[in-house]
């Protein structure tokens, strides 16, 4: 615990130093230095928890009305802490180079990098809290930091709106979570999580309602469908490292909260497992569908986050069913798959966002319709982005495959019988669909942005970014390959946390047995590809004779091909989008030429719409109108409306609990 405290103090000092120092280099350096200290001390602090599984705990006496504040770092906290801080550190290193063009324009990075330090501090609070109040404090610090980080380019109205959208969404979630905590507090007469456990593990309507509230709150934080609409908005508006950290690290706090309360839940009801599974599968499928038509590379990656948290939640759903059915094997496979996918997703999604940041710095746009041929100008970025992309699609031999394999194993061979087994297999097919769709999206995004020739003249001459950006990306890529080729290593990281979920004696052995095979198969695949590739390259070198003139791509007999004839982001997605037009409707604006000799130019513009967001805004507009009509002046005071809503949630929870 002392080490964690040192880390927290270092982060505070680093943040303060970033604010007061005079030189940009020193400001960024102070922030990075503090994070290095904090990461090292955190790793030292949690190492014994990994080794022995014995939790660290501490209590701090506080004045009335809070009383004592309890901190407790168990294996679950240790798992989340062990990668959250180092990944934030890599993000800050990336930021140092990424922000450089803005800094030479006279911007002061002090507050930005200080916020990154505070973000790390919020992880310490959230993951180590044993007290609902501290948990909420960390939760709020993370939300506000993320909001302030998103509006780095605050002069753009679009970015301010996206960030405000995020701020509102995350606070709606805060109200729901506060309602859940107040309900629990009223039962337990304490804000301590351990005391919550007593009431949360008693079956009944109250538990069901509280569980529902918690799920909604954490789903909002992690960007599950249909609460995802703020994710692509915020992540396309934020600087690349902030998008990466939001998607890869900050949103994971929602899943952590869910797991933290799962530990307090005791044996869950069967409907809980099925609900989470269905909820996760919907996010995985719909999130993947949305990735196929996006034009904005960062928006695309944002939707992919929704897909991936959905996959993790599917794992937890299977784990819940395992707990209900007292099947240790399903507990190990389900929670193992979910936890491992959280780690895997953090690695590849950060890498992809960093790649997108390199593209936006290199080519000055992330609109796929304007990009093309970047692999020639930015070969290193292209290679790293491709590794992240293939991992997102869950393709072997990379890390995404390991976690998805565990989930498939649990779903296809659940050991359940009859209808339950059939339902689980159907969920397996959903996972297969989302996997194939995300492979589609990755090939489309990479193919259109990096391959072929530029589709429109670029504003800037693209080039690979400096080592400050490439080195963090390369580290992520190495970790992705390592966790893919040696998946038991990833399992070893999640094992202590995994053991908490089942009854005492729960073992990770079923998952370990499967992943040992996957590791061998992945190595075989890697070798099986490396050998032919080496032979092929040797054959090509042997036969190469310098051509007299550059040879063009074969135009199929058409002599006047232009880059604008290439397949575009929209046309690549067209056959697929036509099949799923109900889910991914395009918004098309066209002005067709009139008459035989049209006077003005025609126009055709299409961009993908998010039907959920459209309906939410429609519904809000409608709802606001009704509230205004009904209450006259109430909607002029939004705080009052929220307070009324909060009280109503608590009352409803009580009514539901009281009638049980």
């Amino acid at each position, binding site marked *: 615990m002392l080490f964690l405290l040192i880390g927290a103090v270092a982060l505070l000092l680093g943040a303060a130093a970033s604010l007061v120092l005079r030189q940009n280099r020193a400001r960024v350096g102070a922030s990075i230095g503090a994070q290095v200290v904090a990461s090292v001390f955190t790793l030292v602090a949690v190492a014994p928890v990994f080794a022995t599984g014995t939790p660290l705990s501490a209590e701090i006496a506080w004045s009335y009305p809070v009383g004592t504040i309890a901190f407790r770092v168990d294996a679950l906290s240790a798992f989340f802490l062990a990668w959250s801080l180092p990944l934030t550190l890599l993000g800050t290193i990336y930021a140092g180079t990424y922000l450089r063009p803005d800094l030479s324009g006279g911007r002061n990075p002090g507050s930005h990098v200080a916020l990154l330090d505070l973000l790390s501090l919020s992880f310490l609070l959230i993951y180590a809290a044993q007290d609902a109040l501290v948990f909420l404090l960390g939760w709020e610090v993370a939300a506000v930091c993320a909001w302030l980080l998103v509006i780095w380019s605050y002069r753009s109205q679009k970015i301010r709106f996206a960030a405000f959208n995020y701020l509102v969404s995350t606070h709606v979630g805060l109200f729901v979570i506060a309602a859940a905590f107040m309900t629990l507090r009223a039962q337990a007469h304490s804000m301590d999580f351990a005391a919550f456990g007593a009431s949360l593990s008693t079956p009944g309507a109250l538990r069901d309602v509280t569980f529902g509230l918690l799920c909604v709150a954490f789903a909002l934080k992690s960007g599950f469908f249909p609460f995802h609409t703020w994710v692509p908005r915020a992540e396309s508006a934020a600087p690349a490292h902030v998008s990466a950290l939001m998607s890869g690290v900050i949103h994971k706090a929602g899943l952590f909260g869910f797991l933290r309360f799962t530990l307090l839940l005791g044996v869950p009801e069967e409907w809980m497992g099925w609900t989470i599974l269905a909820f996760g599968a919907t996010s995985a499928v719909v999130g993947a569908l949305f990735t196929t038509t996006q034009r904005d590379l960062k928006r695309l990656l944002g939707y992919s986050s929704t897909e991936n948290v959905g996959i993790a939640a599917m794992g937890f759903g299977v784990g819940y069913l395992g707990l209900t059915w007292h099947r240790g094997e399903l507990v190990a496979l389900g929670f193992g798959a979910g936890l491992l996918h959280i780690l895997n997703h953090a690695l590849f999604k950060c890498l992809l966002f960093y790649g997108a940041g390199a593209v936006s710095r290199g080519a000055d746009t992330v609109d796929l319709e304007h990009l093309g041929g970047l692999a020639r100008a930015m070969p290193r970025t292209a290679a790293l982005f491709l590794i992240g992309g293939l991992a997102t699609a869950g393709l072997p031999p990379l890390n995404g495959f390991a976690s998805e394999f565990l989930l498939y194993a649990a*779903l296809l061979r659940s050991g359940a019988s009859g209808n339950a087994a059939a339902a689980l*297999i159907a969920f397996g*097919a959903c996972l297969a669909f989302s996997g194939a769709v995300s492979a589609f999206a990755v090939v489309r995004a990479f193919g259109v942005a990096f391959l072929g020739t530029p589709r429109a003249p670029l504003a800037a001459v693209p080039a690979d970014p400096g080592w400050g950006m490439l080195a963090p990306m390369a580290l992520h890529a190495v970790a992705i390959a390592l966790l893919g080729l040696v998946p038991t290593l990833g399992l070893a990281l999640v094992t202590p946390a995994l053991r908490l979920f089942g009854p005492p004696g729960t073992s990770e052995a079923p998952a370990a047995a499967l992943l040992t095979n996957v590791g061998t198969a992945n190595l075989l695949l890697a070798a099986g590809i490396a050998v*032919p590739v080496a032979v*092929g*390259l040797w054959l090509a070198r042997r036969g190469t004779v310098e051509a007299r003139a550059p040879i063009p*791509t074969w135009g199929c007999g058409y002599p006047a091909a232009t880059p604008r004839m290439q397949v575009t982001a929209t046309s*690549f*997605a067209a056959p*697929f989008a036509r099949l799923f037009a109900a889910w991914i409707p395009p918004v098309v604006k066209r002005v067709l030429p009139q008459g035989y000799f049209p006077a003005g130019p025609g126009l055709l513009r299409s961009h993908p719409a998010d039907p959920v967001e459209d309906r939410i805004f429609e519904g809000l507009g409608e709802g606001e109108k009704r509230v205004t009509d009904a209450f006259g002046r109430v909607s002029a005071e939004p705080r009052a409306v929220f307070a009324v809503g909060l009280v109503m949630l608590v009352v409803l929870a009580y009514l539901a609990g009281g009638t049980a």
Partner: protein
Amino acid sequence: MTAAAVLAQAVLLGGLAPVLPGVVTRTKSWWAGRRGAPVLQPAYDLVKLMRKRAVYSATTTALFRVAPWTVLGATVVASLVVPLAGPALVSFPGDVVFFAYAWGLARAAMMLGALDTGSPFEGMAASREATFSTLLEPALFLLAGGVGLVGDVDTLGAMVQVRGHDATGWLVWALSVVTLTVLVQVEAARLPVDDPTTHLELTMVHEGMILDHSGPDLAALQYAAGLKLATGLALLAALFVPVGLPPWAAGLATAAGCLALAVGLGTVESLTARLRMRAVPAYVLVALFAAGAAVLASAWHGNGGAL
């Protein structure tokens, strides 16, 4: 597993790969009343291509040179999971997932290679391939789940040996034949989904993606395509091979089954027209529904005949 068994499997599948496309072509010539090219013509083509030099478009990057060999490597590794004579060379619980994803990796590499040329036709073909695969993948997993449930098995090698003990069991078996047939037709780019002998780039899928490859690179892709056909047909043939044969007999029976199925494919190709591009997803849905029905049937089986 003895060294002889390993060798026999490798020779069987590796040898069938260049032969089966030739058998299909020969069958089509026979139906058309022509004598046709020798059965080994695809093998001669491979030898010829290996001796040629590759030509690379100025638009392409290193990815274009790596992609064909990645396709070949991934297809070869995927084929190791398939049982031909006795147990498969690589077999572990859930290997069917690995099999599907190794094919997925090969598919992704092929599409990326196609997009690397910047050719509109290749891009169009890649887009179609990607679209079909999104519908086909769930079918394969549904089938694996259904067959695994009814036969209580978890490896691909054991799944193809599941036979019916009662009406539901045979229903699941029949549905797996239907699903795998559509799967082979889509994955190996055969009629009525894709016409391997089409001369019009606008209508190509698999051929479209390899338009710009040449020399040894094209040979690698052609061989991988043949191996994919051989792998798919071997899976289908294994459904018809009696369970419990000694390895050598099972190997011979599977090989004979592959040849017979190739003749069947040629016959289908001679008698049917290609589907319109927009109708192909509907055809792929046949596989999805057949596999879904297999899952329902196996659940019904597990419930002891009650719903």
